[in-house]
């Protein structure tokens, strides 16, 4: 009985120390997952193949670009400049001198993007897709 109490106390103390040690890093990681879950999206359309396919379900970090503007090669969710009811998923291919972003699909043959509608306002970017959680056989990070 005494041994059990000691073991439980030991585990508790170790757990508390470990939690304190990792609190900051783990907490921010957990926060990111929680907010990305709330902002998750289903993909429609072929323009991001082979990176992302229609039917993929992705976690999207809505704060990824809160402190920095998207850069070349970043994946972004952005409002379609021609239809503010449509959220697009594209990749930044270049940044204009004025800071506006040129977006393209990873499959340029099947993508309507900045080649058609021009550069987009960085303020129209609403997050960074970073993890595919469905379908099961393709779970994993995306970039």
């Amino acid at each position, binding site marked *: 009985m005494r041994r059990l109490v000691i073991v439980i106390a030991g585990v508790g103390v170790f757990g508390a120390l470990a939690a304190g040690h990792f609190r900051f890093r783990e907490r921010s990681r957990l926060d990111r997952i929680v907010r990305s879950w709330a902002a*998750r*999206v*289903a*993909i*429609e*359309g*072929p*323009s*991001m*193949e082979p990176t*992302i396919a*229609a039917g993929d*379900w*992705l976690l*999207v970090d809505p704060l990824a670009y809160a402190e920095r503007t998207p850069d070349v090669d970043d994946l972004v*969710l952005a409002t*379609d400049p021609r239809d503010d009811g*449509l*959220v*697009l*998923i*594209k990749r930044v291919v270049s940044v204009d001198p004025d800071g506006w972003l040129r977006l393209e*699909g990873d499959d340029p043959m*099947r*993508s*309507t*993007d900045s080649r*058609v509608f021009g550069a987009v306002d960085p303020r129209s970017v609403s997050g960074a*897709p970073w993890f595919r*959680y*469905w379908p099961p056989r393709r779970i994993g990070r995306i970039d």
Partner: protein
Amino acid sequence: MDLLRTIAPRRAAHAHCDIPCGIYDPIQARVEAESCYRIIEKYLASSDEVFRARCLIVKEERAQLAKHHIDVLWSDYFKPEHLEKFPDIQDTCWKAAKQASIVKRTVDLDEAKKLLALIDQIDEAWKGTGGPAATRLPA
């Protein structure tokens, strides 16, 4: 499947390509299915073998077109978020596509009527998910 519905995203992000035109309307399938119905009526009323043969050929084509339009609605128009409101829509589309195949091989008016009824169910879901506003161009 309930779990799947729970983890399904509530919104879509479009890996957009303008080439799929975004115009989806069950009326296309309905018009073809109506053609099938009328053609069967004409077939049954005629004793001209040549005319009857033509009826069968046209019915075959029209039923195939109805099936194609149903398939497009099923795979391209309906989205994960629509399943919440119309959980049976996958099943309805599947049955409608199969019914179009049945219409190809019979001259039974009841089968053509069943196809129309299934397309009307799809139409209801299309309207209930904002299909007309999303896909019809303003005049």
